[in-house]
């Protein structure tokens, strides 16, 4: 029977495709939450495979913080265009104006918290009953315990104590009116799995994932890109460095790493040899409290 075996990436791919197809079958109005980062680009690739030769049968939804890297936005628009996907963009800026929300203050005014408001409004606007997210269980402690089909109440809240048992490969997506489900098709992938898959499938990524020159300031050991959203103080030294990003998020809370890795092989080599995990290295807002993610998820975050 030699030959009839899948390697680990093929197994992960098969599982994710299965999940995408369950979503399409079980929900009336699903949407794929698209950030422009490598995880959501990988999800789009998997979704295309799940529904080929047809196109992806649901919209890509981007909750735009207004603090995005221009390269990532350009990439997003081109990708949606290339695959003829419907792209829905809703801006945190508009929610702030409309609902008179307080902008975060401080040196790095991250809008990550505020994304939740825009997301919930978008879900209401389009009556989405399922939002597909790119969260992985290896990212963070709270995520390690979340189901692949995660039921949220009408406030988007996750209740870790009331999760449905998830057995074999059977997914129960039945919900009451007003509830919706977050589905995480790449739950079982690690950061390295994603990178190896991107290399294997030759998936294109925004340029910021590879080494480039950028003006940055150093803050508590992390490199933050200069942008109009960052408050500069007198002590800050703006310097040009060769950097790349490991995640693409809000420019104010996503740190760069010094790197000369300019192609996938070099990036993967660096990741294997690096000993710092993804969220710790590049997310400035997670360090605030150890339970930060648990709190955000309970409040409707992805």
């Amino acid at each position: 029977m030699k030959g009839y075996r899948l390697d680990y990436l093929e197994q992960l791919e098969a599982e994710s495709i299965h999940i995408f197809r369950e979503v399409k079958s079980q929900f009336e109005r699903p949407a794929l939450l698209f950030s422009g980062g490598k995880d959501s680009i990988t999800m789009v690739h998997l979704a295309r495979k799940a529904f080929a030769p047809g196109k992806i049968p649901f919209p890509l939804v981007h909750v735009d913080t207004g603090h995005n890297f221009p390269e990532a936005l350009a990439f997003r628009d081109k990708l949606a265009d290339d695959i003829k996907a419907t792209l829905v963009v809703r801006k945190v800026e508009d929610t702030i104006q409309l609902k008179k929300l307080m902008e975060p203050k401080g040196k790095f005014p991250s809008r990550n918290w505020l994304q939740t408001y825009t997301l919930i409004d978008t879900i209401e606007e389009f009556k989405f009953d399922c939002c597909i997210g790119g969260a992985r269980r290896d990212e963070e402690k709270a995520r390690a315990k979340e189901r692949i089909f995660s039921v949220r109440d009408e406030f988007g809240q996750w209740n870790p104590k009331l999760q449905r048992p998830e057995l074999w490969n059977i997914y129960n997506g039945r919900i009451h009116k007003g509830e919706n489900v977050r589905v995480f098709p790449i739950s079982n992938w690690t950061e390295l799995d994603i990178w190896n898959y991107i290399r294997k499938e030759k998936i294109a990524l925004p340029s910021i994932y590879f080494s480039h020159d950028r003006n940055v300031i150093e803050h508590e050991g992390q490199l933050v890109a200069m942008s109009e959203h960052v408050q500069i103080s007198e002590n800050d030294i703006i310097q040009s460095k060769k950097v790349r990003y490991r995640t693409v998020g809000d420019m104010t809370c996503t740190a760069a790493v010094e790197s000369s890795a300019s192609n996938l092989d070099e990036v993967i080599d660096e990741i294997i040899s690096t000993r710092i995990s993804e969220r710790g290295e590049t997310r400035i807002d997670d360090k605030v409290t150890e339970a930060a993610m648990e709190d955000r998820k309970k409040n409707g975050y992805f």
Partner: protein
Amino acid sequence: MDLLRFITAGSVDDGKSTLIGRLLYDSKNILIDQMEALERSTKNNADGSVDLALLTDGLRAEREQGITIDVAYRYFSTPKRKFIIADAPGHVQYTRNMITGASNANLIIILIDARQGVVEQTRRHSIIASLLKIPHVVVAINKMDMVDYSIDVYNNIVIDFAEVARQLGLQEVKYIPISALKGDNIVERSLAFSWYEGEPLLKMLEEIEIKEDVNLTDARFQVQLVLRPQTDELHDYRGYAGKIISGIYKKGDKVRVLPAGIETSVTKLEIGGNEVDEVFAPQSAVIQLADDIDISRGDSIVKSDNLPTISNEIEVILCWMDETPLLQGNKYLLQHNSRLVRTVVKNIEYKLDVNSLQQRSAEDGVKLNEVVKATLKTASPLVYDTYEKINENGSAILINETSNSTVAAVLFK
């Protein structure tokens, strides 16, 4: 590189969290910032040591109460394998979580405290392993440092467990003495066990043969979704998307669509939009057929010369997972992969004591975490195999239609 999914069974006191922490730590899958968070959390320890168990404690609610409330998934890899650990709590009130974690596992590590030997919990974990037919069992006899690495203590526990395994019919059982706390026999063979000839635990996990775990003999496929793009260039395209549950399908195969019973043949096979000559478990594929037949989600496509059972009255083992008790005569939705049918629990024959395997009367109703033998009657026939023959075609869940909760795991007999 392949993928091994395993579950660890043991209570907090057996050192389960320490073992997982140790596997992650010693295989260098703990990263610096996780390490820092760990050190921050353990700085109150009198001896300043790092508490490996904290690596696996997820939610603040759990840390505050010092318990684990749910299955957590952990990931690590070595150059040989990627591993997914389902970390499930072991107390009787968490049987539900253990079954959840065990449902996808190729392997179970049953932890035994060397000072306690085989106890009621060991028996329960073994019964669940046998109920769910987990193909490989590793019995890790932990805390050997607390019994002076005694070969006699180890041998006596092996003899006791072998008797449990014999009663339950557990086939592939391997034994290993360890100390998760000291790191003995986890990644490296420990000098403390001069008498132990076998491999350390990680090596065992890397080398256990799992390719036989996938059934490639009996071809089973259930339609998840009918793909009909209906664009100009794909006007007549009609593909049946789904997961190959077991077996192999080739272009030209004579197949039967069930439960309708219509014969046709495979004309085209696709994986991710690319045409291929054959597809096999556990791939997600698209099958095209020669004839235009009315096929919808939940229908099965099998080979004409190898048929599953078709019935609307099925003997099952039910693992009850809901706070609301099960009563004979209750109606539920049954989800068998992608097939959803109404069902009634007709007859509850007996309750299975998961601590002793004894059968008891079920007249007082079936409560959370209890396991029963029952008969289900479904509104339309199911196309299935016994759980023993093909796990994934022999399992289902029950859903309470009013709460939408998943209330039971179902194993077809």
